[in-house]
């Protein structure tokens, strides 16, 4: 087995996992605290990417682009909450599903109108665009390491926020008992807006980080939202810890599966059969994983207490 390829793929899996975590953490908070089904979370990912692309073009610097796009995404999330989403919190899940489905369509077409149908390339600064060679023959792009590092930092920051701050305590209380936080005199609307905006920023950050690799494009939200949903279902809705663990697992399994499933299959079936069945099965792998987890634990791996 090619060691280089293995290490590279492991890192790819880890990177995917980190990105999924950024998306999943926001989404699981929104589900857990507002009981709001936000299918449009992928669109926030897309908006973050496009905003970053624009700011990068304007300032000629990726780093500045990200730094400007982060608050911009937060404001966008805030506006979305104030204008549309807040009217939906009281409604039932079916209404959430349809309304956020509508929101996806609106945001996608708005993006189309503003940024055009083609993707936008986001260039990396020279120092991020290099490679390192920690082991002989193992070449790793620096940017991937950067993504993983930033992701871990954000995860740590989120952990501190949730466990050590007052607002984090309210979030935790809200996740397990929504009625109680109202009774405790916490301003619900403010808390909800904060959580939604936080989710938007996390999703946007993921989009910004992935944009230099895949381009900022309109369809990017649609494909990632499903995987994100699978992650939070596996992890347990409302649980950040669950989102983290599930995201890493899903990222690794998906990446490694796509790379190595045909090799695995070739061990016990003909090369032809392996080559036809492996792509199909590897595409289905994370769903099979989800089904397996739910068969044993219908509430996910780490559901918050009180659910």
């Amino acid at each position, binding site marked *: 087995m090619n060691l280089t390829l293995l290490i590279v793929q492991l890192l790819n899996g880890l990177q995917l996992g980190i990105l999924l975590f950024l998306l999943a953490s926001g989404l699981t908070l929104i589900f857990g605290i507002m009981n709001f089904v936000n299918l449009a979370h992928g669109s926030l990912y897309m908006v973050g990417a496009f905003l970053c692309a624009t700011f990068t073009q304007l300032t000629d610097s990726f780093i500045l682009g990200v730094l400007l796009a982060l608050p911009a995404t937060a404001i966008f999330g805030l506006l979305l909450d104030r204008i549309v989403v807040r009217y939906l919190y009281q409604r039932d899940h079916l209404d959430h599903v*349809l*309304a956020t489905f509508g929101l996806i369509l609106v945001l996608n077409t708005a993006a189309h109108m503003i940024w055009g*149908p083609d993707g936008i390339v986001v260039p990396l600064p020279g120092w991020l665009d290099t490679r390192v060679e920690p082991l002989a023959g193992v070449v790793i792009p620096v940017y991937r390491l950067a993504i993983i590092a930033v992701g871990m930092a954000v995860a740590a920051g989120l952990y501190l926020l949730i466990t050590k701050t007052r607002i984090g305590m309210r979030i935790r209380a809200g996740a397990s008992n929504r009625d109680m936080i109202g009774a405790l005199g916490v301003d619900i609307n403010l808390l909800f807006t904060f959580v939604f905006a936080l989710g938007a920023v996390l999703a946007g950050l993921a989009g910004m980080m992935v944009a230099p690799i895949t381009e900022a494009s309109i369809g990017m939200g649609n494909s990632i939202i499903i995987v994100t949903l699978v992650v939070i279902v596996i992890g347990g809705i409302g649980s950040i810890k669950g989102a983290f663990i599930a995201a890493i697992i899903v990222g690794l399994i998906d990446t490694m599966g796509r790379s190595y499933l045909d090799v695995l299959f070739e061990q016990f079936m003909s090369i032809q059969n392996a080559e036809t069945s492996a792509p199909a099965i590897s595409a289905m792998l994370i*769903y099979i994983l989800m089904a397996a987890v739910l068969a044993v634990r219908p509430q996910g791996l780490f559901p918050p207490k009180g659910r």
Partner: protein
Amino acid sequence: MSLSNLGIRGSVIVLVMILLALVPVLAAVTDNAFYLDVATRLVILAMAAVSLNLILGNGGMISLGHAAFIGIGAYSVGIPAYYDMYNGFIQIPLAIAASALFALITGAICLRTKGVNFIMITMAFAQMLFFAFVSIEEYGGDDGLVINVRSEFGGLIDLEDNVSLYYLSFVSLLAVLYLVHRIVNSRFGMVIGGAKGNERRMQSLGFNTYRYQLTAYVIAGAICGYAGTLLGSFTNFISPEMLDWSRSGELLFMVVLGGTGTLFGPVLGAAAFLLLEEYLSPLQDYLLFDGAGIYWQFSFGIILILVVLFGKGGIVGFLDRLDEKRQRRKAKGHD
């Protein structure tokens, strides 16, 4: 039942059904095959929407993966056709069996969860199937499968004739409506409806609600699978796109727009959806939006949000409110 007792809601429904029954005649008279095309799609999607309504409106199960069954039904026509097997008497039972099986397996898992989890899992399973079909190059993968011969029924009915296909679909819709009507009002329907309203209570009374809900899920899947076979024959083209979750979203929209939980709501919802699609798309030429049907996407998105925020009870609910006003005016008039 005298005609005057039909009320506004009843009259609209009867009118729509009569119009649908006469579509081929209208199409022939106006020499416009387009009407027949739209109507065929309408009737087939209405069938799918009715099946979704059975578990959603009557059972309270919000499935965001119902389009999977349309896809299974369509591929049950397409894959045999790929092997030059066009026998409808084999394709259709195959479609129903495959749909029922998929519903049984996924439903058994989905129904063990509640609320948000349920919605997400139904969606994920449908996407799983989507990716599965995309990956199978043999059957077209992403590009889909073209079929040259529609389901054959050995001389009984010739589906190559568009009018025959339409009437088969229309009669099927009527049959499905009647079937669902009986199911909803039967003992089985009572349990499903009760479980939607208060599952804890139903269990306390002695009902193993899981079994009943799973059964309803399988029945709905099977009906939708059948609709899928007709769609496959109709479009002569089968692709994984049919299973995409946005298709499931559109089905949900049809049910909600028409009026969740009502018998004819899904039919009216499907009709409204298709009419919107047909008439909003051409308008894009008059605006600055460039191609790719994004004007339709944009408008549909706005409409979705507006219907959710302001459209209580859907079309049927709206007609019912008109009926209530009429009753009140009548009562006043008699004073």
